[in-house]
């Protein structure tokens, strides 16, 4: 296994010279080219295997943050997916450029305040919606893409990584993981991090689904939260965090409507791709 990691919180916390936390071969690359470097490594392994210089199918995993995927690394990622390199790309999404001091990224949700988009009376935090990176990735028609949440590791996250690795012979795989950032999201103590992450799925804010060979499957427990009555109120998730401390009830309603629209879109896509409905 070879890990490719562009600049981000993971790189800053794990590789402080002359130390490293990694026990596997690891390469740190520039912010924008995780996809390109991972493609190169994968192609080199394939070539060495073909020439008989290497007799091992080493897997390549790229781990990038939301800045390195949504904004800066998007074209390298798109190129990698389009060329069909067998690389697992893991996006850990904490919804802003956290380690440089909480700047807005393409992954920041609507109305969340950051240091570059502070909340005032006119501009209420970020104006735009969160970029739907999964749809961009799915549009490349790769064999496997999935969303996961750090609050559901024992079955969901572990199985998705295992499944993604088993698809690498066919082409690239992509996993989008939601990872809360206690200093950046703010307003809750460190020990509640997992609880907040779980709320994101329970309120429908971050649904768990996978794109498995052109079929969109909504995974449990998110399939249950497709029903509005079973979902927790979004207020619980929003008001627990200081990045949304300024939002009013009308703005929460607006966020709720966006979530409802997105879940309907997922539902239509899921049914349209031929997945039987669990609650028909």
């Amino acid at each position, binding site marked *: 296994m070879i890990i490719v990691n562009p600049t981000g919180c993971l790189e800053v916390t*794990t*590789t*402080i*010279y002359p*130390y*490293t936390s*990694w026990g596997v071969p690891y390469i740190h690359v520039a912010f924008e080219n995780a996809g390109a470097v991972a493609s190169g490594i994968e192609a080199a392994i394939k070539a060495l295997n073909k020439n008989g210089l290497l007799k091992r199918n080493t897997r390549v995993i790229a781990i990038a943050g939301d800045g390195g995927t949504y904004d800066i690394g998007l074209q390298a990622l798109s190129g990698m997916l389009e060329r069909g390199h067998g690389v697992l790309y893991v996006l850990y999404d904490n919804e802003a450029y956290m380690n440089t001091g909480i700047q807005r990224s393409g992954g920041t949700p609507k109305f969340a305040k950051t240091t570059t988009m502070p909340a005032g009376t006119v501009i209420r935090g970020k104006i735009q919606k969160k970029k739907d990176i999964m749809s961009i990735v799915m549009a490349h028609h790769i064999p496997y893409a999935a969303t996961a949440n750090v609050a559901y590791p024992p079955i969901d996250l572990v199985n998705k990584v295992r499944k993604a690795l088993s698809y690498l012979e066919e082409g690239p795989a992509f996993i989008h993981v939601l990872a809360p950032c206690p200093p950046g999201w703010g307003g809750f103590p*460190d020990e509640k991090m*997992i*609880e907040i992450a779980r709320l994101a799925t329970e309120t429908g804010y971050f649904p768990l689904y996978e794109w498995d060979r052109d079929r969109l499957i909504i995974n449990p427990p998110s399939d249950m939260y497709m029903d509005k009555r079973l979902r927790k109120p979004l207020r619980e998730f929003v008001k627990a965090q200081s990045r949304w401390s300024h939002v009013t009830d009308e703005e929460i309603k607006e966020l709720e409507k966006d979530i409802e629209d997105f879940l309907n879109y997922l539902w239509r896509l899921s049914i349209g791709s031929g997945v039987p409905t669990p609650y028909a």
Partner: protein
Amino acid sequence: MSTGAWTPPKTTKLMGWRELPAIGGYIMEPMSTTKNTTGSWRTERPVIDQDACIRCRTCWMYCPEPAILELDKPYVTKDGRRYDLTYEIDYDHCKGCGICAHECPTKAIKMVPEGAEE
């Protein structure tokens, strides 16, 4: 790292420019951060009640460090339950975030202020 404590190698030597390989900033020694003990950062330390623990692995799964060690030590609880595993905390690296205590389904982990008596 999953089972038992890993013993770090003895030294981390800073290499000069003559000794370093041709290009780039190489780090030749894997997992050398284990030598950098960060346990002094915490203000509260987790303490596991081995009798209340049901060995569900939840803390081990959620620990971001990971500072929960899964040891092959048999343990028999006071009410006669027999376990092959024991979970212990690596106090050299635990930063005291408290996720283990918060997520524990049986509330077997308590956060004790650093410096206080157990």
